[in-house]
């Protein structure tokens, strides 16, 4: 082993894997499996996530030769996860989730917030007031009630903490579109958490 050797970059491993180097492919799987699992849970749920993870890496294996070094490997990988998650949700053909529209902020005729500061300020306290497991279940369920387009953007931007520019690359849309979708998701979830903290959801 070379002293001071650094791990090969994603792109180097991807190029080797595309050339048929199985250990290089498995190194990519090991490097990314936890992140892909967490992302899959957030896009679908913990029950479906293992299938989404497996499907993702199968797709990556099959299509590595189409990966060009022009994008980062992680950007390309996230796109595969998002698509695999979406396919999985569609295949399940669940009845449409009840929308979160009712949790959007409300304004009076003059455009002022309809709720008092106390009612608006309550959100930060929800994670102190509620049992962690109960909160996790409710938040996960609320996330699944977002429209797919909003959930994908919100999960990548706010939960995986990619930059807006990177999310735009993953989803193949303009940064302004990402901001619009993330913003709508934040508004709905903020309202949901606020009602949760007040014991109404």
């Amino acid at each position, binding site marked *: 082993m070379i002293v001071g050797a650094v791990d090969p970059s994603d792109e180097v491993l991807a190029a080797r894997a595309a050339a048929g180097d*199985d250990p290089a492919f*498995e190194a990519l*799987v*090991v490097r990314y*499996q*936890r992140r892909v*699992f*967490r992302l899959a*849970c*957030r896009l679908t749920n*913990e029950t479906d996530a*293992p299938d989404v*993870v*497996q499907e993702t*890496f*199968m797709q990556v*294996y*099959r299509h590595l030769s189409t990966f060009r070094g022009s994008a980062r490997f992680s950007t390309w990988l996230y796109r595969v996860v998002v698509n695999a998650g979406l396919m999985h949700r569609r295949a399940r053909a669940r009845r449409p989730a009840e929308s979160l529209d009712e949790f959007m*902020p409300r*304004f009076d005729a*003059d*455009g*002022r*917030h309809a*709720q*008092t*500061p*106390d009612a*608006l*300020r*309550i*959100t*930060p306290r*929800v*994670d102190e007031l509620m049992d*962690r497991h109960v*909160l*996790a279940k409710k*938040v*996960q369920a609320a*996330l699944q009630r977002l429209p797919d387009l909003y959930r994908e953007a919100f999960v990548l931007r*706010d*939960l995986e*903490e990619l930059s*807006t520019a990177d999310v735009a690359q993953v989803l193949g849309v303009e940064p*302004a579109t990402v*901001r*619009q979708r*993330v*913003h709508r998701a*934040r*508004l709905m*979830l*903020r309202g949901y*958490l*606020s009602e949760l903290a007040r014991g109404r959801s």
Partner: protein
Amino acid sequence: MTAIVCMSGVEVLMEYMEGAVAPDVRAAIEAHVAGCARCEAFIASYRETPRIVREATSVEMPADLEASLLAAIRAARGSARRRDE
């Protein structure tokens, strides 16, 4: 001077936070929020929302899944190669 009320401020809140609004809009938002307890409370909760959801959905991959994932990938790879031969 752009006039901002709570509703129009909320509309551009994320753009404001990401520095994507014009300087006059930025100034108008800041002037409005400085005198509006409702917006101050709303923005605090809006900022908190990603963290709360992130922490509540931060799950670890089960160890047995790591093992079964590699096994499944190897099996699929093997059968794909046999088909190609």
